[in-house]
C-alpha cells in the first residue's frame, strides 16, 4: 500500500468547513489503499472550486476548461490506457456546462472515473443555481427561486445503464473512501456523485440537511436496474449512499500506448499507392 503522504499536502483556496476537504482526503486514502503511485495517475478537471482538486494532489494533472474535463480525461485514457484516469469537477461543470459530455461518456464506457462534488450550487462564481439546485431555491441570480426542476444525475446515469453509478457524501468519509476505491477499480466508466455541503453559498443543503436524509445502502441488489432507479428516485426525501447500479460489461479501449506508437514508412508508402 502506498503511503498517503506521497500524494502531498498543499495549501488550498477552499473555505474552512467546506466539504471538499473531506473528499480530497478520502480520494488520497482510496488511492493509497489501491496502491496507485502518483506517476501512474492522471487527474483531469474542469473549472470551479472542486475542479482545483488536482492542484492539491501529487499526480499528473490537466486542469482544463469549465465543463470539459471528461473529454480531456477520455482523450488521456485513449492515448495511455495504462494510466488510472480520474476526472474531478463540480456539479455545474459536470452536469451543466458539460452535460452533453456526461451522457456521451456513459455511452462511450471508457475506463474513466468521474467524481462529482455535488454541492447543488455554483461555488466559484458565488452562489448561482446549478443544474442540481432544487426548484424554488432562492439565490442572488434566482431571486424568485430556481425555476427549473433539479437534475438527478444518478437517475440519469442508471437510466442509461452506466457501468457503475454510486452516491456518496463528504460527511461519511469512510464510506466515501470505499466507494471511490470501488469506482476506480470498476473496469469501465464509473460515476460517484458526492454530496458536498458548500458552507458559503448553499444555506439550504447544509451538512445537517444531508445528514438527516442520507443512509448507507444495505441489502440492495446493484445489478437490479429497476431497484436502482427506485433508489435514485428517493432524492431529495431520502438519500441512499453506496453503489446504486453496476453492470459488468467489457469497456471500450485497448492497450496501445500512442506515445510509443509509430508507423512504418513501408506501410505509409503502400497506403499512398491505394490512390494510384
Amino acid at each position, binding site marked *: 500500500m502506498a503511503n498517503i503522504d506521497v500524494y502531498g499536502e498543499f495549501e488550498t483556496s477552499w473555505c474552512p468547513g467546506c466539504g471538499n476537504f473531506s473528499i480530497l482526503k478520502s480520494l488520497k486514502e482510496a488511492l493509497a489503499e489501491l496502491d496507485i*503511485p*502518483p*506517476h*501512474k495517475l*492522471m487527474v*483531469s478537471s474542469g*473549472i470551479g472550486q472542486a475542479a*482545483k482538486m*488536482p*492542484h492539491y494532489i*501529487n*499526480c*499528473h*494533472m*490537466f*486542469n*482544463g*476548461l469549465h*465543463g*470539459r474535463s*471528461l*473529454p*480531456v*480525461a*477520455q*482523450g*488521456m*485514457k*485513449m*492515448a*495511455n490506457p*495504462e*494510466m488510472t484516469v480520474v476526472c474531478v469537477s463540480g456539479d455545474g461543470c459536470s452536469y451543466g456546462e458539460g452535460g*452533453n*459530455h456526461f*451522457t*456521451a461518456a456513459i455511452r*462511450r464506457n471508457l475506463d474513466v472515473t468521474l467524481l462529482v462534488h455535488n454541492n447543488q450550487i455554483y461555488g466559484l462564481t458565488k452562489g448561482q443555481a446549478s443544474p442540481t439546485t432544487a426548484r424554488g431555491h432562492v439565490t442572488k441570480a434566482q431571486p424568485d427561486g430556481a425555476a427549473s426542476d433539479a437534475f438527478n444525475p444518478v437517475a440519469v446515469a442508471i437510466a442509461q445503464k452506466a457501468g457503475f453509478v454510486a452516491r456518496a457524501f463528504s460527511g461519511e468519509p469512510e464510506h466515501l473512501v470505499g466507494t471511490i476505491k470501488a469506482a476506480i477499480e470498476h473496469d469501465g466508466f464509473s460515476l460517484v456523485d458526492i454530496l458536498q455541503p458548500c458552507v458559503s453559498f448553499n444555506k439550504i443543503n447544509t451538512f445537517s440537511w444531508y445528514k438527516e436524509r442520507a443512509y448507507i445502502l444495505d441489502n440492495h441488489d446493484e445489478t437490479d436496474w429497476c431497484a436502482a432507479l427506485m433508489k435514485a428516485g428517493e432524492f431529495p426525501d431520502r438519500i441512499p449512499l453506496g453503489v446504486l447500479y453496476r453492470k459488468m460489461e467489457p469497456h471500450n479501449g485497448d492497450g*496501445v*500506448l*500512442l*506515445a*510509443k*506508437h*509509430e*508507423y512504418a*514508412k513501408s*506501410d*505509409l*508508402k503502400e*497506403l*499512398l*499507392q*491505394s*490512390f*494510384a
Partner: protein
Amino acid sequence: MSRQNINIVIGGAAGQGLATIGTLFSKAMTRSGYNVLVLQKYMSRVRGGHNTFAVRMGVDEIVSPTDEIDILVALNAETVNLHRGELAEDGIIICGDDIDKGDVSGLLIPFNDLASKPLFYNTVALGVLGSVLCQDICYFEQMLSEAFGKKGNEVVQANLDVLRIAFDWVKAKEAVYDCLPVPQYGENKLMLNGNEAIAMGALAAGCNFLSFYPMSPSTSIAQTLIGKGRGLGLKYEQVEDEIAAINMAIGASFAGARPIVTTSGGGFALMVEGVSLAAVSETPLVTAVVQRPGPATGMATRTEQADLNLVLYAGHGEFPRAIFAPATVEECFYLTHRAFDLAEQYQTPMFILSDQFLADSYQSVDVFDLDALPDIAKPMLTVGGGYKRYELTEDGVSPRLVPGFCETLVRGDSHEHDENGRITEDGENRIRQNSKRLVKGCGLWQDVIGPDYYGEKGADLVLLCWGTTLGACLEAAEQVDNHSVGVLHFKQVYPLREEQFMEFLEEAGEVVAVEGNATGQFARFLAQETGFRVGAYVLRFDGRIMTPQYVLRGLESIL
C-alpha cells in the same frame, strides 16, 4: 495548334452516379499520364438537385478549374439546358438519344441498344467518353475491374463487355472531337482530393489520434483517416460535439498522442475556447478547418474563403499560431505534415485552412516523397530531475514531457500557472509566462514559408491571393492583354514576414486582391500588418470557386 487541355463536365441529378463516372474517368486519365483537376459542384441533398463533376485534363499541369466546357456529358435534359451556354465554340454534347441537345454537335447515345439494363448506363457513358477522347481502353478496364472486383467476376465481366461495346460504337462513327496529345510518360501518379491529401499528410506525420464531429465539407478528412489509418493503429472517435472533439484531442496530446481535429466553420466556432486551452497549456494540436460559405449554416456544399478572420483570431487571450492555406492537393499533403512538425516544436495551435473546392477536387499528383520529409519533432518520454513543464527558456519553448513513462509528474493547466504548472495569480509570473508563450511566435516567424511570386518583378499588375484562388489568378495572368501581370500567392497566411514579399507589392504598378469572400479579408489583414493597401479587389462569394474567367471579368473594370 492542337488542344492543350480540355474541360469535361458531367452533369445530372444526385444519385445518378455522376461522381462514380467522374472519378473512374479521372483515375483512368491519371493512370495514362494526364494531369487532371476536378471541380465538383453539388447541392446539399442526397437525391435530385443538379450536380456537376468537371474534369479538366491535359498533358501539362492544370492549375485551375475553368468555366468553359469542351465536352458536356449530360445525364439528364436539365444539364443540357443549364450548361449549353457555357460550351466552347467547338464544344460538344454527349447525352442519351432521348434528350434534345439542340443544334450543338456531339453524340446521342442509344443507351437501350448498347446496354441490356439501366444498371450499365454509367459504364456506357464512361466508355463513350473514353472512346471519344481516343483513349486506350485498357485503363478503363482496369478501373472497372477494381471498382467492381468485390462484387465478383460476373459483374466485372458484364461491365467490361458493355465498356467494349460503348468503345466500339464510338469508333464506328465519324470522329466528333479532336484527340488530345498523348502524354510522354505514363509515370506512377496518384489521384486524390484535398481532404484525402490532408489525411495522408497527417498520417505521414505520425498522426495517431482523431476526434471529430461530422460537418461538410470536412468530413472526408476524418473518413479517410479512419479508413486508411485504423489499420496502422490510429485511434479515432466520433464525439458528441466539436467542443468534445478539441478537448479530447488536447487530453490525448497531453498524454502522448499526435492528434488532429477536423471541422468546418460552424464546428470550429464551437472549438474556439479549446484553441485557447491548447495555447495556454502548450499542448500540440493541429486543426483542419475546411471552409464553406457562412454565416452560420450558410451553404453546406459550396465553397468560400471567408473564415480567415475566424481562424486568425480564434481564441481569447494572446498566443502564437500558424495558419496554412494550401492551393493544391499537393500542398494539402506537405503543409499538413509541416503543421504537425511545428505543432510539436512550438506547442501552440496550428491550422490548415482549406475549402470545399479543394476538399472535393481530385488532382493528379506525383507520388508524395515520404523519404524527403523532415523528421517530426518528438516530446520526451523520460527526463532527469528538476523538470519544469513550463520552464522559462530563451525561445519560449519548454521541453515537453509526456506523462506516465517516468516518475516525474507533469501538470498541464488552463489557468495562468508557474513553471511547474501550478495555478497562480502573481503578476510578475503572469508577465513571464505570457511573454514566454508569445516569444515562441518569433521562432514561428523565422520558420514562415514565404509567398510564391510568379511573373516578372515590377509587373504592371500583381494579383494578390491566398489558398485556392491561386490557379484562377495564374491562368488569368496569362490572358491579360497589354499588361505584364504577376501573381503573389500566400500558402501560409499567418504569420506574415514582410521582407519575404513587400518588394513585390511595392514595385507593382497596381495590386489587386483576388479572394473568395466578400470583404477581402486577407488584403485587409495584410494592410493591418504592413500598412500596404491594395488598389482594388476581385471578390467572389456566390459559393463558387474562383475561375480565370471570373478574374478576367473583374479586371476589366479595373484595367
